[in-house]
């Protein structure tokens, strides 16, 4: 079995994508609180939901990137 080497730059890239997902969902929550005139304390109380949605978004992005990678490899082989 081959050793898999994960470069520091890869890890850094994935962390940045994860943080961007979190920030995006956090800002969506801010918009939702404003739009539905809800309590601002939900920024804290609903943090766990923001994290879960951000994680789902991150996985969705990983999935899309894997498909794009797969398509690129297919064309490069041809």
């Amino acid at each position, binding site marked *: 079995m081959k050793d898999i080497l994960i470069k520091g730059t890869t890890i850094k890239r994935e962390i940045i994508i994860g943080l961007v997902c979190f920030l995006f969902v956090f800002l*969506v*929550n801010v*918009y*939702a*609180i404003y*739009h*539905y005139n*809800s309590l601002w304390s*939900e920024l804290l*109380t*609903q943090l766990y*939901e*923001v994290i879960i*949605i951000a994680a789902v978004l991150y996985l969705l992005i990983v999935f899309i990137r894997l498909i794009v990678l797969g398509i690129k490899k297919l064309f490069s082989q041809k």
Partner: protein
Amino acid sequence: MKQSRRDFLKLVTGIAGGAIVLSSMPWLNTFVKGSRAGKAASDKVRLGIIGVGDRGSLLLQTFKQFEKTGNFEIAAVCDNYQPNYENALKLTDGKAAGFYDYQKLLDMKDIDAVVIATPLNEHAHIAIDAMNAGKHVFCEKSIARTIEDVNRMMETHKKTGMILQIGHQRLFSPIYIEAIDKIKNGKIGKVTQMRAYWHRNGNWRRPVPKDKPELERKINWRLYKEYSAGLLTELASHQIQVANWIKGEPPVSVIGSGNIIYWKDGREVWDNVALVYKYSDGTHLIYDSVISNRHYGLEEQILGDKGTIEMEVNKIYWEDHPSAPAIQRLVTDIEKDVFGSVPIGGASWTPEVGIKDKGEFITGNYQMDEVQLELEGFVNYVRDGKAPEELTIQGYHATIWSLLGEQAINENKLITFENKIEL
């Protein structure tokens, strides 16, 4: 979570410490003052039980549950039906004196009080004789068969100064105490309607020995108008008492209907009744009782503009609920926009279904027996020589208005009432 005796005392103390007990629950003071079970022989309360059928034997068995701590004694039992008489002696392990004639029981000088659990039509003369003989009285509900008899009992009670406590055990129930406290404190807002019902499925008959058909009216007295008003005096009076307790006053009018539509077996009392009681502020108590369907069981529903209380199931429900968090609402709205169907034709109106809410418990899952509590209260009052008059008045109004419900059905018109006795 079991509610222990200690929890009950905390509940009562919490309420009793406030003004609420003075206005609506003065009978709870007997529990707040602490145990009145003095150990001296002179403190011992000696009781006689007159009528030891189904209800009387239940009361006797309940007394036995706190016999050791209550400093009282069941000194005598009385029943003129042989099987009940024998059962009563058995339940007292042969220690109580047995009588077929209640007058002989009343002749016992050392009996302090009597518990009356006979058929309804016999309450009046036995209770009056007992009070005139210097015995305090606990009388099972309803007070009496006729308004005239009710008034005679009340007048004797006033004249003799003897206790006349009526068997409305919900007055001692932790659920009802806490529910009424919430209602009086405005937790469910303004009470605008009350609904109560008692539904059973059965002929309400007790077995009559095949070789003694002449005992039919004696054993099944609840089915004959000479002895009882049936569903009204045997069931409805409990729930009318609760409604009166909540409103702090009796109704001002009643109208209703009743029929025998199912159990056509020679009975005289109705097997289904429907009544509307109106209170002075316009609130209604809508009442019905049937004995041909038990799907809904029994309940008292108190409807306020902020919430609803269902007493029998110990639940409170709120009209308004906090909205879901904003992010959940946004996700839901996006889902509806993306996945929602496009309405083309179809229903233009959807029914206003009720709020689907599991509600909250009013009080802990208590195991306190309210019948035991009312009997404990009675023993304490006898020892003190007096009982809160409110207990008698609650019984009075509940009985009067159950009998007036019968009159409303009989006369097919709205009935009002004016008290002719001083309360």
